[in-house]
């Protein structure tokens, strides 16, 4: 009986250790990040003060700590695409947004990216898109990277599509893309090739204007 009581009394101490570690972790995650001042952000982006205020209020409501890490980002993005699996594409998006490559997106990153995407010039938007496609950020898009991206986009569609999604659909899509974009047929697409090709395509040019009134 004494042994039993002894073993029972030992438990709380271990629990205490575990609790300390948990508290430490908790402290680390509650690191708060505050963005730079409103004027600075207004200068750096093409948003008005009003718009920045609205954006920040929403952002702060969702992420009181001021930082979005990749898992949260994936969860949020996945909510918009309930049909399929948005996690791969969200991962690529996150890398594109996370300019400092430190695993978390701050409000400034968020707002800068939005500024480019919504208010930037055609060239800036295309450059951002190129950056998104260029997974290893080496300045070239090769077929593997493109296939990964396209496959991730098709993943978001989910299983139930019409027409039925075939396995070679992403590859065909990539081939068509390279056909169009790769001017010198060297197997990779550079930024200039990309921008030039896009500027030739009216569809893309038109579509780029679509999202301007999102905010």
């Amino acid at each position: 009986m004494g042994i039993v009581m002894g073993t029972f009394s030992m438990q709380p101490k271990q629990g205490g250790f575990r609790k300390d570690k948990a508290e430490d972790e908790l402290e680390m995650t509650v690191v708060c990040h505050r963005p730079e001042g409103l004027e600075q952000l207004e200068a750096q982006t093409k948003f008005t003060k009003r718009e920045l205020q609205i954006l920040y209020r929403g952002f702060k409501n969702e992420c009181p700590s001021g930082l979005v890490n990749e898992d949260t980002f994936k969860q949020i993005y996945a909510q918009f695409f309930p049909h399929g699996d948005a996690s791969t594409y969200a991962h690529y998006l996150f890398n594109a947004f996370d300019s400092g490559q430190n695993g978390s997106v701050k409000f400034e990153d968020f707002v800068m990216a939005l500024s480019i995407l919504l208010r930037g010039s055609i060239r800036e938007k295309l450059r951002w898109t190129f950056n998104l496609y260029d997974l290893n950020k080496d300045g070239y898009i090769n077929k593997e990277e493109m296939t990964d991206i396209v496959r991730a986009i098709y993943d978001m569609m989910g299983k139930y599509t019409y027409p039925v999604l075939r396995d070679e659909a992403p590859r065909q899509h990539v081939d068509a893309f390279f056909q169009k974009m790769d001017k010198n047929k060297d197997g990779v697409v550079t930024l200039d090739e990309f921008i030039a090709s896009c500027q030739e395509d009216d569809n893309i040019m038109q579509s780029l204007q679509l999202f301007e009134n999102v905010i």
Partner: protein
Amino acid sequence: MAAGVATWLPFARAAAVGWLPLAKKSMPKPPSDNKSRNDEILIVNVSGQRFQTWKNTLDRYPDTLLGSSEKEFFYNEETQEYFFDRDPEMFRHILNFYRTGKLHYPRHECIQAFDEELAFYGIIPEIIGDCCMEEYRDRKKENLERLAEDTEAEMSTDAPLPPDSTSRERLWRAFENPHTSTMALVFYYVTGFFIAVSVIANVVETVPCRPPKGRVKDLPCGEKYSLAFFCMDTACVMIFTFEYLMRLFAAPSRCKFMRSVMSIIDVVAIMPYYIGLVMPENEDVSGAFVTLRVFRVFRIFKFSRHSQGLRILGYTLKSCASELGFLLFSLTMAIIIFATVMFYAEKGTKETNFTSIPAAFWYTIVTMTTLGYGDMVPNTIAGKIFGSICSLSGVLVIALPVPVIVSNFSRIYHQNQRADKRKAQQQDRHSGSQALCVRNRSSFEQQHHHLLHCLEKTTNHEFTDEHTYSEVCMAESVGYRTSRSTSISSHQGLSTSCCPRRAKRRAIRLANSTVSVSRGSVQELDTLHIQKSSIVPQSRSSLNARTQDLKLNCDDTDFTAAIISIPTPPANTPDESLPSSPGIPSILRNSRQLGDCSGSFTHETVKISSL
């Protein structure tokens, strides 16, 4: 969808720029956002306490009072605020729900008041957060039990019956509530007396009386005065039978009455007598007959009609069924374990009482309940050790569920006391009338659908649902040429598709009546609640119609169906003509006529299901 996700939608839409170079087709035009860009602060005055919040905060939940245009009814022009004559304390929680997306239940508030507030503001209680859900459910259950008690009490009020009630109804009333008339009271006491007499007779007839002359052995009184006891028994049974038949006759629902516990007790109480009459004086059968007489003791349960406390006890046991079950189960487990152990521990001893494991069951039960008769005791040391462990654990196992049962009993008992003390009038129960839920398709949904549409264009595939997918898989190129009627009807049956698919579009086109399929159903985000069923088919398919905003009937106040138009991609529009399906032309023709009634939003009830 969580309120906050709406914040991220612009972000997701902006990120759609990344799809553009890949898209094979051009993107659809985005929905135009009519709402003013500037976010304004609204003042909500609740009984003098002013709450201020952003308009966007309230718009997060368009299917509630504050989120929809229903709040305009409460708008005060002079003070430029929304005035609600409700409890400001409760409103705090309601407003917090809009702000944080989580509804909390304040523990100190009355559950009914809270429910009423929720119903007023159009918020369904199911979205209470996990932190408060437990408490809410417990209180709700308690309240419902109390209300059930009330209904029971009300059903048997002392109010006089309507004059045109039949004699049967009056008889039933007399039985259920003896205080209504003197006759009923007399009958009540007479039956009570006879129950007591019958029970005492049962008891006394087994007491040994002095033997009559000529015998030596003591005789039970029942055999000495057998005639007297028989006469008494007969009289009691006659009274009970008469009472049972009267009750059966008077009962409003005979089947229900026959199934009720009290009537079963009545039957069990009087059956042995009749069976005894019928049965011959046979040696073999009389043994069984004797057993039947045991059932006469059930007459004591008839007292529960006369005693409130007995009924409470019965109800408590019923409501604690799960705890009792657990107690029983854990005891059984423990009994089996310890009996086995004791049997094997005592196996070696000569002339031991522990002859088998079932024999050891008796020892275990007696020990665990701390009775300790001493008819079976362990002799070996191992047996004694295990025996002591057994008795210690018995205390624990029994002590655990008992407080739960006790607390249940005390709660029910107190409730009963309250019900007795109260002289309540009929409560107007809030009969579940839904708050007028006027909704409009929120711009969030429009934009979300535009985003999904862009994705479709990028990949040149369309979202569809499982059903259509399997259809298409099976029937390849022929599958989608279904008839228009089935397409529209199956459209209503779909629950998960984003857009009713090409199948419908092609079929409709084939039938030479084109309905452009835009972001038709929004079923993966919300389900359409049907208010006027007659107009439903039209309204559902009308979502497909390509028109500008319009109203179905300008003068029809209870149902207006407007159609939010989402401009379709240019590739699909050129050959569109006015659809000839029965419902839609009338809508469109009305639109031409009622040009001045444009600009209103859909007034269908839309319930946003959580993602």
